[in-house]
């Protein structure tokens, strides 16, 4: 077979929601969440290295991280993790041909639960810690 040329310009098609259907949105959000979570995971592990530097370094860092901007960022991570995880359940089930005709409803459910869950964490983080 004559190999076709790969056009890296098409990368945008992964994320472009125009003309996409429900399953397409699920994929777009899943991929964006995935990339964000990979970045956060390794940043998180790097930052946690401050634990080894003793109480002063760590507690000082936490003090700066209690600003609303950091909390918003953290909420974004929680939203991404909840969505990626719950949509992951949808992907797992459909991958064994379970509930494929209901994949749209499963996506809406995952999205709704992610939003609700994020709100719960938002209230908790802005009021308690």
């Amino acid at each position, binding site marked *: 077979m004559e190999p076709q040329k790969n056009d890296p310009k098409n990368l945008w098609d992964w994320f472009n929601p125009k003309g996409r259907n429900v*399953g397409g949105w699920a*994929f777009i959000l899943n991929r964006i969440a995935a990339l964000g979570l990979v970045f956060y995971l390794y940043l998180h592990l790097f930052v946690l290295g401050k634990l080894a530097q003793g109480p002063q370094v760590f507690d000082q860092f936490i003090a700066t991280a209690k600003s609303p901007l950091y909390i918003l960022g953290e909420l974004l991570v929680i939203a991404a993790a909840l969505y990626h995880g719950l949509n992951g359940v949808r992907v797992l089930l459909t*991958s064994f041909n379970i509930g*494929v005709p209901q994949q749209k409803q499963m996506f809406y459910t995952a999205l709704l639960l992610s939003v609700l869950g994020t709100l719960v964490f938002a209230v908790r983080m802005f009021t308690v810690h």
Partner: protein
Amino acid sequence: MWKITYRVHRQKGNEPPHYETFQVEVDPEEYVLDGVEKIWASEDRSLTFRHACHHSTCGACGMRVNGVEKLTCITKIKDVVQDGGTLTVEPLRNFPVVSDLVVDLGPLYRKMAAVQAPAVHALSMTPWEGQNIAPPADIPMRSADEEYIRLPDCIECGICISACPVAATDPEYFGPAPLAAIQIQGLDKPELLALADSQEGVWRCHSAFECSAVCPSNVDPGRRIMDLRRQVSAKRLKLA
């Protein structure tokens, strides 16, 4: 009659693509392809597009209408635009553009050949939605255990490949129609199992289900890929 604007993707040879607009008078009950033919007939004879049967059997007239993959011979104008509105018509994605609205579907045909896509298959392999199709009672069977056969639903229009986000960046991925063709045949042939389980096979799908959303012919390739995944997984885990 409606007056609408067709915004048509034009591209000849190696020149960069551009869009050209045509004012067309159409009956809203007509189909998108009819408007394209009117442009060709009365406005610009150099406009190239593919079509043949006009009734969703040949799979030649797949295009993107307002950014969404459609079989233009069965897409009513009134369903995609309003009177006075603009309709954008573009060639399918993820295939090389030959000219204007014509793409080279060769890569799809070669993949369909590689997976031995059948010309006819047993009625029992019909899509899930059509499982209650009653075989015609007056057709004589040679023996009692002979199965009724039918043409496959897949018309090889390439619309599913155009909508697939994985195919957007990887032309070697088999994509929806060829994987669905494997699922319809089952995994008894070792070469088909090997293809489904290969690096261009079922593991590459990211469950966007865009293929099933745009398929004009009831194939439901997304569900077939998932079922193929289930079957191959069971074999690899020695559960079947």
